[in-house]
């Protein structure tokens, strides 16, 4: 009998008969034991046993399939499964025991006459959770191209990853092939597809490399499209992750997420919106930073030259509260269609709160928030740095009740942030830092046009918004960049 070769993976090939029957069984299954005499009596049958190579008795062509190669090649989900081949092509299969179906497939009218009419099968060994991981790697591991690290048996794998420099200082999740493969289930994109060229070393990051770092960061597979979009956005000329990394200023990349994906992956935009405690918020930003570190080679004490840095450089990601916002969602204000998910990356220092528990008029509150924004970079410097204002729900309520939208608030902030030259010139206030003396007395705008971004997030109680200072805005510095998430699903 000549065999047909079926590949379960590049390395494993299984010989199956071109004509006749193939059965897959396991001794542990009562239905398989029930059909043992039927199989023994069936002419031209090859039986693969998933557990006991000596089972079933009385079968001439009995083969050991404890490695499950044949079961995987035949895509077996239930045992017993009986398959009929003719000319190397599958003609049909029966799952479990059904006298009628077995009779029809085999053409043996009186088959198993003394057996019950019907007995359901059992789960194939290939479906067992204890072998699922090994099977995942065996069937799909060949698609992975990353260099494999050998971790010695006596080595602690988390410590080993520290020793090899893959950590940002916190423990990382070991990116085993099975974990990386499960992470890759989060996207329909091919593992070898290039997502971006990552600075500072200008290394191509494939979907697989991003997935490896998403595993390291602690992401779930459903976060991967958000991470991919964030990497795509950060590695653009406009965002200039290279400059942001290499500057001695301490800002790092932050990610705001908009659209349905926020709820789908369980992000937090309510209480402690910018803080710890939510897995998606905490790990997506971290994955982006680990890509820059481990793929791009951007590490502190090397090309990352921040004099100070800040704790959010481990990873800084949050979601906008769109539902409770008086403003159009950030992504929509930046050109993304409603109903679509998007990330916006921006240069970010750590956030600083602004208290205003008195203002109930939008004009007063806008001036109050503007005062907080004035401190970005330096209170006496203008148009140096961009900034992001995170308006809390209790402040947003004041604007909502007055009918103020995003544009109205932006205009009021711009007006309140026209700074009097006399106050900010070098030497004014006894401080040498400041803007150079000029010919004109015209007030100066604190931020460049488009240099102030407004987001709505936070808990329902507390009249405390937040200012997130940025870095040099625009060409030569960094501008916020928005990219859609859905193309990465």
């Amino acid at each position, binding site marked *: 009998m000549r065999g047909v070769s079926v590949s379960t993976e590049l390395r494993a090939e299984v010989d199956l008969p071109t004509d006749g029957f193939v059965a897959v069984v396991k001794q542990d299954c009562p239905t398989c034991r029930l059909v043992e005499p039927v199989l023994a009596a069936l002419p031209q049958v090859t039986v693969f046993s998933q557990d006991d190579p000596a089972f079933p008795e009385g079968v001439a062509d009995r083969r050991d399939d404890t490695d499950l190669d044949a079961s995987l090649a035949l895509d077996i989900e239930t045992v017993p499964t009986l398959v009929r081949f003719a000319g190397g092509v599958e003609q049909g299969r029966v799952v479990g025991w059904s006298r009628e179906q077995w009779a029809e497939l085999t053409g043996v009218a009186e088959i198993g006459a003394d057996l019950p009419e019907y007995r359901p099968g059992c789960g194939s060994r290939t479906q067992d959770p204890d072998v699922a991981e090994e099977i995942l790697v065996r069937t799909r591991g060949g698609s992975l191209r990353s260099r494999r690290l050998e971790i010695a048996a006596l080595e602690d794998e988390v410590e080993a990853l520290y020793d090899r420099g893959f950590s940002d200082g916190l423990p990382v999740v070991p990116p085993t092939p099975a974990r990386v493969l499960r992470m890759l289930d989060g996207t329909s994109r091919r593992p070898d597809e290039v997502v971006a060229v990552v600075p*500072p*070393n*200008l290394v191509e990051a494939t979907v697989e490399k991003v997935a490896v770092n998403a595993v390291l960061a602690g992401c779930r597979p459903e976060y991967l499209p958000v991470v991919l979009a964030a990497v795509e956005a950060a590695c653009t000329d406009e965002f200039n992750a*290279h400059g942001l990394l*290499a500057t001695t200023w301490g800002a790092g990349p932050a990610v705001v997420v908009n659209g349905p994906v926020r709820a789908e992956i369980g992000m937090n935009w309510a209480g402690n919106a910018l803080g710890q405690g939510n897995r998606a918020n905490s790990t997506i930003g971290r994955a982006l930073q680990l890509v820059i570190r481990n793929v791009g*080679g951007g*590490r502190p*004490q*090397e*090309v990352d*030259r921040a004099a100070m840095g800040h704790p959010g450089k481990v990873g800084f990601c949050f979601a906008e509260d769109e539902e409770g916002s008086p403003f159009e969602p950030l992504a929509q204000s930046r050109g993304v269609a409603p109903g679509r998910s998007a990330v916006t990356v921006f240069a970010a220092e750590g956030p600083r709160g602004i208290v205003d528990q008195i203002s109930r008029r939008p004009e007063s509150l806008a001036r109050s928030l503007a005062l907080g924004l004035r401190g970005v970079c330096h209170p006496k410097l203008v148009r140096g740095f961009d900034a992001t204002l995170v308006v809390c729900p209790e402040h947003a309520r004041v604007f909502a009740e007055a009918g103020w939208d995003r544009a109205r608030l932006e205009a009021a902030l711009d007006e309140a942030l026209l700074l009097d030259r006399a106050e900010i010139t070098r030497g004014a206030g006894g401080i040498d830092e400041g803007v150079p003396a000029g010919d004109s007395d015209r007030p100066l705008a604190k931020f460049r046009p488009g240099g102030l971004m407004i987001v709505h997030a936070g808990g329902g109680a507390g009249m405390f918004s937040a200012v997130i200072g940025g870095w040099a805005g625009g060409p030569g510095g960094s501008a916020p960049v928005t990219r859609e998430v859905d193309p990465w699903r």
Partner: protein
Amino acid sequence: MHDFAALEGRGVIAAFLASTQFVVAADAQARALGYREVPSVFVPHPIQDRTDEEMRALADAALEEVLAAVTRR
């Protein structure tokens, strides 16, 4: 360092110039770009708060080294 590489790639003779605080960063980036050695000149730190006169003095003091870096074979 990427600028250095870009200029060299276009056949323009270049040298790397920074303050002493950037020795380690320059070395890390040069190695990542595949250079064993880049002709470099490091001037004393700090830079940002220098007056124009002090900057000119720094530049004058570095000139010989810069010329040597771009003419060295």
